[in-house]
């Protein structure tokens, strides 16, 4: 067990909770989690040692940023994803931990949709948040990082879609880190009640380099009977921010959860994406693209657990590693006893661009039921010099040839992303990261 030097103590949590007028249940949850955090072990992502990673040394838990006054004041990187239009609807922008902009359409309000920052949600919708916050999808006492998260949560959003409400346009959250001292402990809850549907897209953007930053992000998606949730995320946090990101969902019967994830962080990242298919006939689909560069080390565990009968789970992950970047792709399809007629499919591929880049893809199928189907494909390899030769023999420069091969490698995932906006954004961001 490594020694953990705490930068915060109980008084920081009590002060933060009091300043925000949080309900008592949340303060108690925080304190309980904080007390457990010290004892609990770190998670053990397969094949990556994270016990020396910095999950606790950050600048300031509660940075006092001035909210952005309007869309026009946003940094360029954020404008790229939000647009320039001040009247853009159904957008939330957070500056470090501070809620800045929240535009929600009258139509959604009338339909009873709740879309608000975490701080407001716990005050105005305390019972609802209490019902879902780390109670059934992710638990605070799973390990040190979930406990720290529960203790220190300082931002995020709450999105609640009542039954039978179908939201056509994506709902968007943009989390901007523009203070090098800011620690990110964002919590996102998406509740889609029966027969509802929603597309939610979030962006993590760093506009500053930090010396030592921490992002500890937890998402909980609860999809009710026959609900449809499409969840997109594009993460572009800075080089020295150590990222723990856990995005998890549960499904009621016939519910669908689709994940479109782009991990473009520049720092060490441990990512966990799990869908628990509880209800019969429910469905999960994870599509993920990753670009690694510099010396970053990353571990991505994507898991679909089938509990219900006739459930379907699909995982498709492609990653490109440049420079000395390292990535582990763990794909887990688990079919529990009784989940008959279920199907678990996964494909993981990593392309390494340099001699020093490393990749490992581990497809795992754990099946406790006879009457099921399952399949996996995995590959890890370097750029084929004959492909580059072929492209260059048409006059294309080596750099451009590599760019084409990289885009081509990621395209089968990018082109299938169900959220148009995420697809468009990712193309640009991949371009930028590849050219770094």
């Amino acid at each position, binding site marked *: 067990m490594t020694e953990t030097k705490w930068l915060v103590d109980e008084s920081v949590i009590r002060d933060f909770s009091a300043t925000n007028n949080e309900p008592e249940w949340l303060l108690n949850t925080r304190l309980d989690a904080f007390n457990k955090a010290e004892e609990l072990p770190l998670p053990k992502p397969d094949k990556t040692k994270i016990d020396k990673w910095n999950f606790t040394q950050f600048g300031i838990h509660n940075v006092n940023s001035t909210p952005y006054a309007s869309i026009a004041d946003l940094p360029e990187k954020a404008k790229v994803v939000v647009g320039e239009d001040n009247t853009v609807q159904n957008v939330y922008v957070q500056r470090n931990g501070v809620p800045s902009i929240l535009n929600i359409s009258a139509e959604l309000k009338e339909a009873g949709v709740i879309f608000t920052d975490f701080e407001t949600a716990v005050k105005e919708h305390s019972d609802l948040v209490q019902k879902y916050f780390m109670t059934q999808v992710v638990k605070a006492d799973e390990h040190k990082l979930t406990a720290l998260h529960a203790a220190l949560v300082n931002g995020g959003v709450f999105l609640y879609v009542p039954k039978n409400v179908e939201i056509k346009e994506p709902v968007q959250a943009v989390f901007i880190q523009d203070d090098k001292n800011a620690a990110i402990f964002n919590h996102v809850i998406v509740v889609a009640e029966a027969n509802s549907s929603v597309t939610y897209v979030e962006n993590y953007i760093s506009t500053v380099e930090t010396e030592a930053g921490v992002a500890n992000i937890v998402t909980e998606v609860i999809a009710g009977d026959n609900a449809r949730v499409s969840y997109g995320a594009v993460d572009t946090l800075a080089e020295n921010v150590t990222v723990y990101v856990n995005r998890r969902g549960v499904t009621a019967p016939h519910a669908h959860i689709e994940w479109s994830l782009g991990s473009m962080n520049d720092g060490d990242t441990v990512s966990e994406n799990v869908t628990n298919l509880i209800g019969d006939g429910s469905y999960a689909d994870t599509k993920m693209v990753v670009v690694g560069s510099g010396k970053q080390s990353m571990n991505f565990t994507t898991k679909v657990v089938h509990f219900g009968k006739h459930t379907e789970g699909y995982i498709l992950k492609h990653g490109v590693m440049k420079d000395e970047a390292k990535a582990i792709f763990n794909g887990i399809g688990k079919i529990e006893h009784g989940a008959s007629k279920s199907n678990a499919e996964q494909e993981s591929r990593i392309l390494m661009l340099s001699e020093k880049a490393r990749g490992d893809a581990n497809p795992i199928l754990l099946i406790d039921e006879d009457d099921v189907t399952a399949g996996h494909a995995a590959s890890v390899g370097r750029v084929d010099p004959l492909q580059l030769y072929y492209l*260059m*023999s048409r*006059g294309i420069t080596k750099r451009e040839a590599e760019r084409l*091969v990289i885009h*081509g490698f990621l395209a089968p995932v990018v082109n299938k992303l169900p959220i148009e906006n995420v697809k468009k954004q990712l193309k640009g961001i991949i371009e930028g990261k590849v050219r770094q």
Partner: protein
Amino acid sequence: MSQSTLTVKDLHVSIDGKEILKGVNLEIKGGEFHAVMGPNGTGKSTLSSAIMGHPKYEVTQGTITLDGEDVLEMEVDERARAGLFLGMQYPSEITGVTNAEFLRSAVNARREEGDEISLMKFIRQMDSNMDVLEMDQDMAQRYLNEGFSGGEKKRNEILQLMTIKPKIAILDEIDSGLDIDALKVVSKGINQMRDESFGCLIITHYQRLLDYITPDHVHVMMQGRVVKSGGPELAQRLEAEGYDWIKQELGIEDETVQ
């Protein structure tokens, strides 16, 4: 348009330390069509790969120049932009890159930044070339060579040739795997390139392609060298009599590279 000259002098090439070409001499000028013929294993494909700069082939002796410029000093992409083209026997497949995207990159690689070809103009050109080659329009949006049949790959090589319009093209066994109809279509595309500013080196071991594309010069390779050169009548004699008479004439027992 100016006439280019590709000159190959005393070319020796090795692969994995084994010498395959043992002193090849050739000169191809704009306006000329040359055919290099010969049985399998005599070094024909090695010649084409060495000219283009395939990473596995090592030139150990001799020179290759294009209009006096030292080709061997150039990277593969520089050779292409200088005016060389190789229609490959086994083109690579590249997932996720559409044929159209690839072709446009190739065209733009020859243009200055800011002077890229307009999308409309590019599509018009590509459509018209695809018509000549009787290619399905959906081939433009398919991933480069992925899942293409042998014939589709060859047509696609000629589509690139017609789009890029090089000064000197080498076509390596462009006829292999083609049925007679496809052979006619591919030949039509190649013949359409005939021009004072375009020279072509056609590598084949069948005479049948030369029924549709008439070469000005014919060369026969054996044992890693050009052992005989002549006019179109040489190809016809090879078609009628095979290669044995050349072997006898030159006292060659085994024509392959030893």
